[in-house]
């Protein structure tokens, strides 16, 4: 087995002409989301915690941006503020140039905990936003069917969420969010609760959907490979307080495929992200004070 630390890797900043052209093209596009000096302080029993500190960034139209960082660094808080579920302490953000107030249908959200309405069938769940927007029943139903087909759940249109597996539930949640045709989709660790295999399937599924739909995605994850595999750029946050460490441009070419996991650009990016998130001293193995408790002669390691 090759150890990535011993192999000579190119710099993650080196981009092939093709990738460079891709980024140039993205920068040409209008700005979808602009975050300006966003700060968030929570008041709790023992004082106030500064969770987000001066976060600024720009996301362009149809860009796929991931947010990574150690747990508790404020990734969810950031995305909840953008979705309107939480208020920023200071700073602001603009969506297509205006400042939205409160949550709204223009910003879709997919949560880690599925949050499907258990009393509605898959079809009715997907129709929820359309019905709230008072679209005609037939139009809503026809549109919902299309989205259900797109996520490959045609056969389950009349099933209740309880009858679906985790991956299927999350596909419904994605279809439900997209059916509203939001201009940006926020996803907060959507595949965090899935097993490795389902998660890989869901990732390629999401890429396919994104390719076919005009949608900008802000994707929170703690899985580095997932972030690299999916994103154009990766926002790396540090904890206490949450601040932007770096906004990494992923040098892996599109279209993406699972084979790219072993490409040098991919590994280089992963190495860089690892350095940023877990500085080397953190992963030094600490010797635990454990006495030997087995009599079996052979050594396990």
């Amino acid at each position: 087995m090759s150890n990535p630390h011993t192999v000579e890797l190119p710099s993650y900043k080196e981009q092939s002409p093709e990738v460079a052209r891709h980024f140039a093209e993205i920068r040409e596009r209008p700005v979808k989301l602009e975050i300006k000096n966003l700060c968030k302080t929570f008041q709790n029993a023992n004082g106030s915690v500064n969770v987000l500190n001066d976060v600024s960034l720009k996301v362009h139209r149809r860009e796929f941006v991931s947010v990574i960082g150690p747990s508790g660094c404020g990734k969810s808080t950031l995305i909840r503020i953008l979705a309107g579920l939480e208020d920023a302490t200071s700073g602001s953000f603009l969506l297509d140039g205006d400042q939205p107030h409160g949550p709204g249908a223009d910003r879709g959200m997919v949560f880690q905990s599925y949050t499907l309405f258990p009393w509605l069938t898959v079809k009715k769940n997907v129709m929820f936003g359309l019905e709230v927007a008072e679209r005609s029943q037939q139009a809503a139903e026809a549109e919902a069917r299309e989205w259900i087909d797109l996520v490959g759940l045609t056969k389950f249109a009349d099933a209740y969420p309880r009858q679906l597996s985790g991956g299927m539930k999350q596909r419904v949640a994605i279809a439900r969010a997209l059916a509203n045709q939001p201009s940006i989709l926020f996803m907060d660790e959507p595949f965090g609760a899935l097993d490795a295999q389902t998660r890989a399937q869901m990732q390629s599924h999401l890429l396919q959907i994104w390719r076919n739909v005009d949608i900008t995605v802000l994707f929170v994850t703690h899985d580095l490979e997932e972030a690299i595999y999916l994103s154009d750029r990766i926002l790396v946050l540090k904890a206490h307080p949450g601040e932007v460490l770096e906004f990494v441009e992923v040098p892996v070419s599109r279209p993406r495929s699972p084979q790219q996991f072993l490409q040098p650009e991919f590994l280089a990016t992963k190495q860089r992200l690892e350095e940023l998130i877990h500085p080397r001293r953190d992963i030094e193995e600490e010797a635990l004070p454990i006495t030997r408790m087995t009599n079996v002669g052979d050594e396990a390691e």
Partner: protein
Amino acid sequence: MNKPVSTGSARRPWLAIRKDLTPHRQLFLTVCSFLLPLAIWCLFSYTPFIWHPDMKLEISADRENVTVVYTAGDHVSKEFFPTIVSEVQAENVQILANREAGIEPSGSSSRIRRANQKILRHIATFAVEKGWLPRNDRENDQAIYEIWKAVATDKIPDAKRRLTNENLAIIERNWDLLSTRSDVFNSRLLPETPLEKLVPQGKAANPVYLPDPHEVLLQGWSLFTADLADDETSMSDRYFHSLRIVFFGFFLSCLIGIPIGILCGAYDFFSKLFEPFIDFFRYMPAPAFSTLLVAVFLAHDAPKIALVFVGTFFQMVLVVSNTTRLLDESLLEAAQTLGAKNLSLLRRVIIPGILPNLYNDMRILLGWSWTWLVIAELIGVKSGLTEFIETQGRWRNFDAVFPIIILIGITGFLTDQFLSTCRSYLFPWTPESAEKKRGPIGRFFAWVINRDVYVSPK
């Protein structure tokens, strides 16, 4: 050697922590849970040597100069019973001694004849009980006279077994006197010397408040089938009257309590505006308002319905608002990101989301309203089942009280079972309903309720 492990249910233990039993065993235990108390009741009632601290009088006589009169059917303690017996015996000894000595009885002869007529009647209740005398002839002196004759001349084969030898001898001696005067009853031809009194006779019994199961059953049957005089209320009228009060009171309470509860759970505004006072008010017991309610709503059913309302309403608001607050917050957030605001959030998320739990809350509260019913029916003009329980209880007719109490229990239990069965058809998305297997009727109901979402099990 390894023993073969049997996987059959026969090998599975009955006691295993948090493991479900097989359906057969569950059914068996459910049946047992009802049979067990019944068996204990039967055991206490039908085993003479268990408990039975009283004697239930079958024959009883008045005594001279005693104000406390025991009549047939009365209970006396086993310790006290011999005292009455020996007092009557002593009186009889005195009567015989006077007769022997030829002492003229004091008092006029007509008075003695009246006393003797009373003595004859003492056998009536016993004779009715044993089936020798039709119930309608209970006070028919001619028929009673015939009984004395029949017992004394051995015409009733049962009599030897039912009566003590002592009483048989008394009846024969009395009949000797009677027959010399007249062969049929004639109040003028009764003996002018005192007759001997029947000695009290009884059987071991439990206290009046624990009637035997068969007594309760028979009494319950006769309560509902008995022919009534025009001015009496039939038991089924009483029953439906009580049902009406419970359901009206509860329905009103739901009509106002559920919306307020939901608003309190959904909006902090309403929560802070209503809940503190309601929280305070519910500590004032509803029965304390009974006289007030009668003054406000006057007679008839209105104050009773109002009492059930007062008893359930305040609890209901608090329970419903709490249930509303328990709705998963993230569902509300998800709905908001899909564009739902205030009213559509309430209508499309909060209400459908809490409905299954709300339904369960209502089942529990309906159970409580039966408790309030009992108090409600006692205020103002007493009515319904409770009035009957009250009056019968005062007369110590507990064999008539028990059937009514059991009836209320059965009504509540069956209502709740019915509602619980409906739940899985009303809310097919809940995990509880998934576990239940649906038969053809269940599938039909599910289809009726929601035609487009019902998924047939594959």
